[in-house]
Protein backbone atom coordinates (compact mmCIF):
# COMPACT_ATOMS: atom_id res chain seq x y z
CA UNK A 1 0.00 0.00 0.00
CA UNK A 2 1.65 3.22 -1.11
CA UNK A 3 1.73 6.16 1.27
CA UNK A 4 -0.71 8.34 -0.65
CA UNK A 5 -3.52 5.94 0.20
CA UNK A 6 -3.13 6.95 3.81
CA UNK A 7 -4.29 10.00 5.66
CA UNK A 8 -3.71 11.65 9.04
CA UNK A 9 -6.87 11.35 11.13
CA UNK A 10 -7.61 13.26 14.31
CA UNK A 11 -9.89 11.91 17.04
CA UNK A 12 -10.49 14.82 19.46
CA UNK A 13 -12.21 12.48 21.97
CA UNK A 14 -8.88 10.82 22.71
CA UNK A 15 -6.65 13.91 22.84
CA UNK A 16 -5.43 14.78 26.35
CA UNK A 17 -3.73 18.01 25.26
CA UNK A 18 -0.22 16.82 26.22
CA UNK A 19 1.20 18.56 23.15
CA UNK A 20 3.86 15.92 22.64
CA UNK A 21 2.96 15.98 18.93
CA UNK A 22 3.95 19.65 18.73
CA UNK A 23 7.29 18.93 20.39
CA UNK A 24 8.23 16.01 18.15
CA UNK A 25 7.07 17.94 15.06
CA UNK A 26 9.37 20.89 15.74
CA UNK A 27 12.19 18.57 16.75
CA UNK A 28 11.86 16.50 13.56
CA UNK A 29 11.63 19.45 11.19
CA UNK A 30 13.70 22.15 12.89
CA UNK A 31 15.86 20.38 15.50
CA UNK A 32 14.20 22.59 18.10
CA UNK A 33 11.71 21.92 20.87
CA UNK A 34 9.47 24.91 20.38
CA UNK A 35 5.74 24.66 19.77
CA UNK A 36 5.75 27.72 17.50
CA UNK A 37 7.88 25.71 15.06
CA UNK A 38 5.32 22.92 14.96
CA UNK A 39 3.12 22.06 11.97
CA UNK A 40 0.46 20.57 14.23
CA UNK A 41 -1.16 22.79 16.83
CA UNK A 42 -3.34 21.62 19.70
CA UNK A 43 -6.25 23.99 20.30
CA UNK A 44 -7.20 23.82 23.96
CA UNK A 45 -10.14 24.89 26.09
CA UNK A 46 -8.84 24.16 29.57
CA UNK A 47 -12.03 25.01 31.49
CA UNK A 48 -14.14 22.49 29.63
CA UNK A 49 -11.37 19.93 29.08
CA UNK A 50 -11.40 19.97 25.29
CA UNK A 51 -8.25 19.63 23.21
CA UNK A 52 -8.26 19.29 19.43
CA UNK A 53 -5.11 18.82 17.37
CA UNK A 54 -5.39 20.99 14.25
CA UNK A 55 -3.29 19.93 11.30
CA UNK A 56 -3.35 20.41 7.53
CA UNK A 57 -6.09 18.19 6.09
CA UNK A 58 -4.32 17.79 2.72
CA UNK A 59 -7.62 18.71 1.06
CA UNK A 60 -8.52 17.14 -2.25
CA UNK A 61 -9.16 20.55 -3.80
CA UNK A 62 -7.04 22.82 -1.57
CA UNK A 63 -8.07 26.50 -1.32
CA UNK A 64 -4.47 27.39 -0.32
CA UNK A 65 -3.17 26.05 -3.64
CA UNK A 66 -5.70 28.19 -5.52
CA UNK A 67 -4.92 31.29 -3.46
CA UNK A 68 -1.13 31.04 -3.76
CA UNK A 69 0.12 33.59 -6.31
CA UNK A 70 3.48 31.86 -6.84
CA UNK A 71 2.50 28.17 -7.11
CA UNK A 72 4.51 27.47 -3.98
CA UNK A 73 1.76 25.25 -2.64
CA UNK A 74 2.11 21.90 -4.36
CA UNK A 75 0.93 18.37 -3.71
CA UNK A 76 3.56 15.73 -3.14
CA UNK A 77 2.37 12.73 -5.13
CA UNK A 78 4.12 10.11 -2.99
CA UNK A 79 2.37 11.08 0.25
CA UNK A 80 -0.59 13.17 -0.92
CA UNK A 81 0.45 16.04 1.38
CA UNK A 82 0.14 19.65 0.17
CA UNK A 83 3.35 21.45 1.08
CA UNK A 84 4.96 24.84 0.60
CA UNK A 85 8.15 25.10 -1.44
CA UNK A 86 10.27 27.55 0.63
CA UNK A 87 12.26 28.51 -2.50
CA UNK A 88 9.13 29.74 -4.26
CA UNK A 89 7.11 31.03 -1.28
CA UNK A 90 7.18 34.82 -0.88
CA UNK A 91 5.50 34.77 2.52
CA UNK A 92 2.39 36.68 1.39
CA UNK A 93 0.13 34.59 3.68
CA UNK A 94 -2.62 34.27 1.04
CA UNK A 95 -2.88 30.60 2.00
CA UNK A 96 -3.52 31.57 5.63
CA UNK A 97 -6.54 33.62 4.54
CA UNK A 98 -7.79 30.93 2.18
CA UNK A 99 -7.50 27.96 4.55
CA UNK A 100 -10.68 27.40 6.57
CA UNK A 101 -8.76 25.71 9.39
CA UNK A 102 -5.81 28.00 9.94
CA UNK A 103 -3.51 25.11 9.13
CA UNK A 104 -0.65 27.03 7.43
CA UNK A 105 1.64 28.53 10.08
CA UNK A 106 4.22 31.24 9.61
CA UNK A 107 7.76 30.09 10.35
CA UNK A 108 8.99 32.32 13.23
CA UNK A 109 12.43 32.81 11.63
CA UNK A 110 12.16 32.61 7.85
CA UNK A 111 8.58 34.07 7.81
CA UNK A 112 7.74 31.52 5.10
CA UNK A 113 4.68 29.34 5.40
CA UNK A 114 4.85 25.81 6.75
CA UNK A 115 2.31 22.99 6.85
CA UNK A 116 2.29 19.30 7.61
CA UNK A 117 4.31 17.27 5.07
CA UNK A 118 3.34 13.96 6.73
CA UNK A 119 7.09 13.52 7.48
CA UNK A 120 7.54 11.92 4.03
CA UNK A 121 5.02 9.20 4.83
CA UNK A 122 6.02 8.51 8.43
CA UNK A 123 4.31 11.09 10.67
CA UNK A 124 6.27 11.47 13.89
CA UNK A 125 3.28 12.91 15.80
CA UNK A 126 1.42 9.64 15.25
CA UNK A 127 4.39 7.70 16.61
CA UNK A 128 4.53 9.64 19.87
CA UNK A 129 0.77 10.06 20.42
CA UNK A 130 0.11 7.78 23.37
CA UNK A 131 -3.68 7.86 23.28
CA UNK A 132 -4.19 7.28 19.56
CA UNK A 133 -5.80 10.69 19.01
CA UNK A 134 -3.64 11.01 15.90
CA UNK A 135 -3.66 8.07 13.52
CA UNK A 136 -2.17 7.55 10.08
CA UNK A 137 -4.52 5.18 8.37
CA UNK A 138 -5.88 3.99 5.07
CA UNK A 139 -8.43 6.41 3.59
CA UNK A 140 -11.08 3.82 2.92
CA UNK A 141 -10.65 2.47 6.44
CA UNK A 142 -11.60 5.60 8.42
CA UNK A 143 -15.36 5.30 8.05
CA UNK A 144 -15.25 1.55 8.61
CA UNK A 145 -13.46 1.93 11.94
CA UNK A 146 -15.99 4.54 13.05
CA UNK A 147 -18.88 2.31 11.99
CA UNK A 148 -17.41 -0.57 13.99
CA UNK A 149 -17.06 1.68 17.04
CA UNK A 150 -20.67 2.83 16.78
CA UNK A 151 -22.00 -0.67 16.10
CA UNK A 152 -20.14 -1.82 19.23
CA UNK A 153 -22.18 0.67 21.27
CA UNK A 154 -25.45 -0.81 20.02
CA UNK A 155 -24.30 -4.40 20.41
CA UNK A 156 -23.18 -3.77 23.98
CA UNK A 157 -26.47 -2.07 24.77
CA UNK A 158 -28.33 -5.13 23.51
CA UNK A 159 -25.94 -7.21 25.62
CA UNK A 160 -25.08 -9.26 22.52
CA UNK A 161 -21.35 -8.78 22.98
CA UNK A 162 -19.28 -8.45 26.14
CA UNK A 163 -18.04 -5.17 27.47
Amino acid sequence: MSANHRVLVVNPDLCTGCRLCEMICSLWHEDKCGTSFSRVQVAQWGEIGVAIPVVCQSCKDPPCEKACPTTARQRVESTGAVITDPEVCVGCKSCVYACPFGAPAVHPESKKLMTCDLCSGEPQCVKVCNTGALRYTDKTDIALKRKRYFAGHIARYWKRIEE
Partner: protein
Amino acid sequence: MQKMIVVDNEKCTGCRLCELVCSVKHDGVSNPARSRIHIIKWHNQGLYLPILCQQCKEAACMAVCPQDAIYRDKELNRVMVNYDLCIGCKMCVAACPFGGMGVNKDSTVIKCDLCDGDPQCVRFCDMKAVNYVDVSKVTLTKKREVVDRFSEYMSKF
Protein backbone atom coordinates in the same frame (compact mmCIF):
# COMPACT_ATOMS: atom_id res chain seq x y z
CA MET B 1 -44.56 11.25 1.90
CA GLN B 2 -40.98 10.93 3.07
CA LYS B 3 -39.14 7.67 3.35
CA MET B 4 -36.03 6.47 5.13
CA ILE B 5 -33.83 3.39 5.27
CA VAL B 6 -34.49 1.17 8.29
CA VAL B 7 -32.31 -1.75 9.27
CA ASP B 8 -33.64 -4.94 10.86
CA ASN B 9 -30.54 -6.63 12.25
CA GLU B 10 -32.46 -9.82 13.18
CA LYS B 11 -32.92 -10.55 9.49
CA CYS B 12 -29.41 -9.69 8.31
CA THR B 13 -27.34 -12.77 7.43
CA GLY B 14 -24.16 -10.80 6.78
CA CYS B 15 -24.01 -11.74 3.10
CA ARG B 16 -22.68 -8.24 2.22
CA LEU B 17 -24.52 -8.14 -1.10
CA CYS B 18 -25.65 -4.60 -0.20
CA GLU B 19 -21.99 -3.50 -0.04
CA LEU B 20 -21.32 -4.90 -3.50
CA VAL B 21 -24.36 -3.39 -5.22
CA CYS B 22 -23.71 -0.04 -3.52
CA SER B 23 -20.17 0.19 -4.92
CA VAL B 24 -21.34 -1.01 -8.34
CA LYS B 25 -24.14 1.56 -8.45
CA HIS B 26 -21.99 4.51 -7.35
CA ASP B 27 -18.46 3.77 -8.56
CA GLY B 28 -18.99 1.08 -11.20
CA VAL B 29 -16.73 -1.40 -9.40
CA SER B 30 -17.53 -4.36 -7.22
CA ASN B 31 -15.51 -3.34 -4.18
CA PRO B 32 -16.94 -3.36 -0.63
CA ALA B 33 -14.30 -0.83 0.50
CA ARG B 34 -16.01 1.75 -1.72
CA SER B 35 -19.49 1.01 -0.41
CA ARG B 36 -21.61 3.54 1.48
CA ILE B 37 -23.11 0.80 3.61
CA HIS B 38 -21.05 -1.56 5.74
CA ILE B 39 -21.99 -4.64 7.71
CA ILE B 40 -20.26 -4.88 11.06
CA LYS B 41 -20.00 -8.49 12.16
CA TRP B 42 -19.52 -10.42 15.35
CA HIS B 43 -19.20 -13.97 14.09
CA ASN B 44 -19.08 -15.65 17.49
CA GLN B 45 -22.34 -14.03 18.56
CA GLY B 46 -23.95 -14.29 15.14
CA LEU B 47 -24.65 -10.58 15.17
CA TYR B 48 -24.62 -8.61 11.92
CA LEU B 49 -25.35 -4.88 11.89
CA PRO B 50 -25.65 -2.94 8.63
CA ILE B 51 -24.49 0.63 9.32
CA LEU B 52 -24.99 3.57 6.97
CA CYS B 53 -25.67 7.31 6.97
CA GLN B 54 -28.69 8.13 9.16
CA GLN B 55 -29.54 11.35 7.23
CA CYS B 56 -29.61 13.18 10.62
CA LYS B 57 -31.86 16.19 11.01
CA GLU B 58 -29.17 18.20 12.80
CA ALA B 59 -26.28 16.61 10.96
CA ALA B 60 -22.80 16.93 12.47
CA CYS B 61 -21.21 16.76 9.02
CA MET B 62 -23.33 19.70 7.90
CA ALA B 63 -22.44 21.74 10.99
CA VAL B 64 -18.66 21.35 10.69
CA CYS B 65 -18.29 21.79 6.92
CA PRO B 66 -16.19 24.96 6.42
CA GLN B 67 -17.45 25.42 2.85
CA ASP B 68 -21.19 24.84 3.55
CA ALA B 69 -20.96 22.12 0.93
CA ILE B 70 -23.28 19.76 2.81
CA TYR B 71 -26.98 20.50 2.52
CA ARG B 72 -30.35 18.88 3.10
CA ASP B 73 -32.32 17.78 0.09
CA LYS B 74 -35.88 18.32 1.33
CA GLU B 75 -37.49 16.34 -1.47
CA LEU B 76 -35.95 13.00 -0.51
CA ASN B 77 -35.18 13.94 3.11
CA ARG B 78 -31.48 13.27 2.64
CA VAL B 79 -28.16 14.94 3.43
CA MET B 80 -26.14 15.64 0.29
CA VAL B 81 -22.64 16.83 -0.60
CA ASN B 82 -22.28 19.60 -3.17
CA TYR B 83 -19.07 18.47 -4.86
CA ASP B 84 -18.65 21.84 -6.57
CA LEU B 85 -18.12 23.46 -3.17
CA CYS B 86 -16.42 20.52 -1.40
CA ILE B 87 -12.66 20.94 -0.95
CA GLY B 88 -12.15 17.40 0.38
CA CYS B 89 -10.91 18.42 3.83
CA LYS B 90 -12.52 15.38 5.46
CA MET B 91 -13.83 17.35 8.47
CA CYS B 92 -17.25 15.71 8.00
CA VAL B 93 -15.59 12.31 8.21
CA ALA B 94 -14.07 13.23 11.56
CA ALA B 95 -17.34 14.70 12.86
CA CYS B 96 -19.80 11.92 12.00
CA PRO B 97 -20.35 9.69 15.04
CA PHE B 98 -21.57 6.74 12.93
CA GLY B 99 -18.93 6.64 10.23
CA GLY B 100 -21.65 7.51 7.72
CA MET B 101 -19.24 9.68 5.77
CA GLY B 102 -16.50 7.75 4.02
CA VAL B 103 -13.47 8.59 1.88
CA ASN B 104 -12.60 7.15 -1.50
CA LYS B 105 -9.04 6.51 -2.65
CA ASP B 106 -9.06 9.76 -4.64
CA SER B 107 -9.95 11.67 -1.41
CA THR B 108 -13.57 12.40 -2.37
CA VAL B 109 -15.97 12.05 0.53
CA ILE B 110 -18.75 9.56 -0.06
CA LYS B 111 -22.05 9.04 1.68
CA CYS B 112 -25.39 7.33 1.16
CA ASP B 113 -27.56 9.37 -1.23
CA LEU B 114 -30.50 6.92 -1.09
CA CYS B 115 -29.74 6.21 -4.80
CA ASP B 116 -32.05 9.12 -5.70
CA GLY B 117 -35.05 7.39 -4.18
CA ASP B 118 -34.41 3.80 -5.25
CA PRO B 119 -31.83 2.37 -2.80
CA GLN B 120 -30.06 -0.56 -4.43
CA CYS B 121 -29.15 -2.14 -1.08
CA VAL B 122 -32.88 -2.41 -0.33
CA ARG B 123 -33.65 -3.74 -3.78
CA PHE B 124 -31.08 -6.52 -3.59
CA CYS B 125 -31.44 -7.49 0.08
CA ASP B 126 -32.93 -11.00 -0.10
CA MET B 127 -33.70 -11.13 3.58
CA LYS B 128 -35.38 -7.71 3.65
CA ALA B 129 -33.02 -6.67 6.44
CA VAL B 130 -32.62 -3.24 4.86
CA ASN B 131 -35.93 -1.53 4.12
CA TYR B 132 -36.95 1.79 2.63
CA VAL B 133 -40.13 2.73 4.46
CA ASP B 134 -42.30 5.72 5.13
CA VAL B 135 -41.10 7.83 8.08
CA SER B 136 -44.43 7.45 9.89
CA LYS B 137 -44.22 3.65 9.68
CA VAL B 138 -40.71 3.27 11.06
CA THR B 139 -41.76 2.28 14.58
CA LEU B 140 -44.94 0.52 13.47
CA THR B 141 -43.37 -2.94 13.26
CA LYS B 142 -41.91 -2.54 16.74
CA LYS B 143 -45.27 -1.40 18.10
CA ARG B 144 -46.92 -4.43 16.50
CA GLU B 145 -44.41 -6.77 18.09
CA VAL B 146 -45.10 -5.33 21.53
CA VAL B 147 -48.86 -5.53 21.05
CA ASP B 148 -48.61 -9.12 19.82
CA ARG B 149 -46.57 -10.15 22.82
CA PHE B 150 -48.92 -8.33 25.17
CA SER B 151 -52.07 -9.87 23.72
CA GLU B 152 -50.48 -13.31 23.72
CA TYR B 153 -49.72 -13.00 27.41
CA MET B 154 -53.14 -11.60 28.29
CA SER B 155 -54.94 -14.35 26.36
CA LYS B 156 -53.74 -16.87 28.96
CA PHE B 157 -56.12 -15.44 31.53
